[in-house]
């Protein structure tokens, strides 16, 4: 296995620069994951930092045979799902105090489109693992890549995506977009 640690020893200044460059290049993954798994702006910032920190901690074990985006999606989704589980317990106690503020999208009105609002609502209504699957699909990942990120078979990806698309189509029809 060719890992960053094997090449550079423990992460030093060179690794930091490389990590920053890779994170910059794949910033969209960070944003998409936080948008799909956290609803308020403070939660998104918190989750974003948590994902980035875990990425850095795991960076010495990054196997370069795997595309960085695949590796990053794995870490991001693992951290995001665990974050949601923790938030579920927290919300049980503080929901009444906090309310649920939907955060605006930094693209400035991009998510104001009715279609995207519907898509966001659809994603929010899915289980955490199905949400990850749909996120990867929307991001244009191939079935074999989705299977690699999630650790399920390609046929399972196809079956699940088929069901999710069917469900989304029904929701689109009922909302007559």
């Amino acid at each position, binding site marked *: 296995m060719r890992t960053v640690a094997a090449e550079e020893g423990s992460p030093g200044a060179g690794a*930091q620069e490389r*990590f*920053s460059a890779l*994170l*910059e*290049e794949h*910033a*969209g993954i960070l*944003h998409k994951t936080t948008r799909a798994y956290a609803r308020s702006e403070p939660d998104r910032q918190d989750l*974003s*930092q*948590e994902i*980035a*920190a*875990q*990425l*850095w901690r*795991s960076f010495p*074990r990054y196997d370069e045979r795997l595309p960085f985006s695949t*590796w990053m999606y*794995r*870490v991001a*989704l*693992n951290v995001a*799902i*665990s974050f949601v*589980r923790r938030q579920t*317990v927290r919300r*049980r*106690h*503080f929901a009444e105090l906090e309310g649920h503020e939907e955060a605006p999208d*930094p*693209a400035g009105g*991009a998510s104001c*489109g009715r*279609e*995207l609002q519907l*898509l966001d609502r659809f994603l929010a209504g899915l*289980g*955490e*693992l199905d949400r*990850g699957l749909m996120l990867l699909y*929307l*991001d*244009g990942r191939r079935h074999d890549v989705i299977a*690699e*990120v*999630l*650790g*399920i*078979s390609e*046929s*399972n990806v196809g079956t*699940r995506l088929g069901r999710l*698309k*069917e*469900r*989304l189509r*029904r929701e*689109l029809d009922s909302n007559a977009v």
Partner: protein
Amino acid sequence: MDLEDLRRIWQEQDRKLSEILRADAHRAAESALRRAETSSRGIAWTVLLDLVLAAIPVIWLGSFVADHLGQPAFGIPAATLDVLAIVLLAAYARQYAMLRTLDWTGPVATIQQRLADVRVRRVRVARWILFLAPLLWALMLVVGLKGFFGIDAYAGFGLRFIAANVLFGLVFLGAAVWVSRRYGDRLRTNPFLRERLRDLAGRNLTEAERLADAAASFRRDDGPRA
């Protein structure tokens, strides 16, 4: 509009966003480096703390049993508590081992199933502690008074007092389970107590098992139909 159109809109939005986000990414990387150095590693540290705290009674009770081998009235309650403390220690050690070897870069469904399994184990252990504590408290009283203050609880309070406490523990447990099922979710002022009541009522276990089942089902491809 069909799904492919939606997907195109989604990807178009991402293209716009990536320009905005490049500037943020540098900041995110810097903050990641800071946070990675300062933050704890979450649940693994909580379990490690549990592990250390569970080791203390194991050592103390082991020493107490050794000192009271010829006094079964003290040795047997202490040995009973020691065995339970060792079981607890082993349960925490298993959880810690599962979490320490957890690789966040692993396939999502596998890692989430593992985390869900740890959660089920944690909730089960918490539930057993809550069930056993009221029943064992009379034994703890006997051993604790003798060990810390040299007081013989049998002579000081009498066997009837101790038997009454065991009985009280049973009644208390029954009442606590009833209260937790009926009113547990209404207690909004104290999150810690509310979680313990949910543990006692079995709600947290049901929820943890549901998540573990969902993760297993996701991997097996037999999840709910659309």
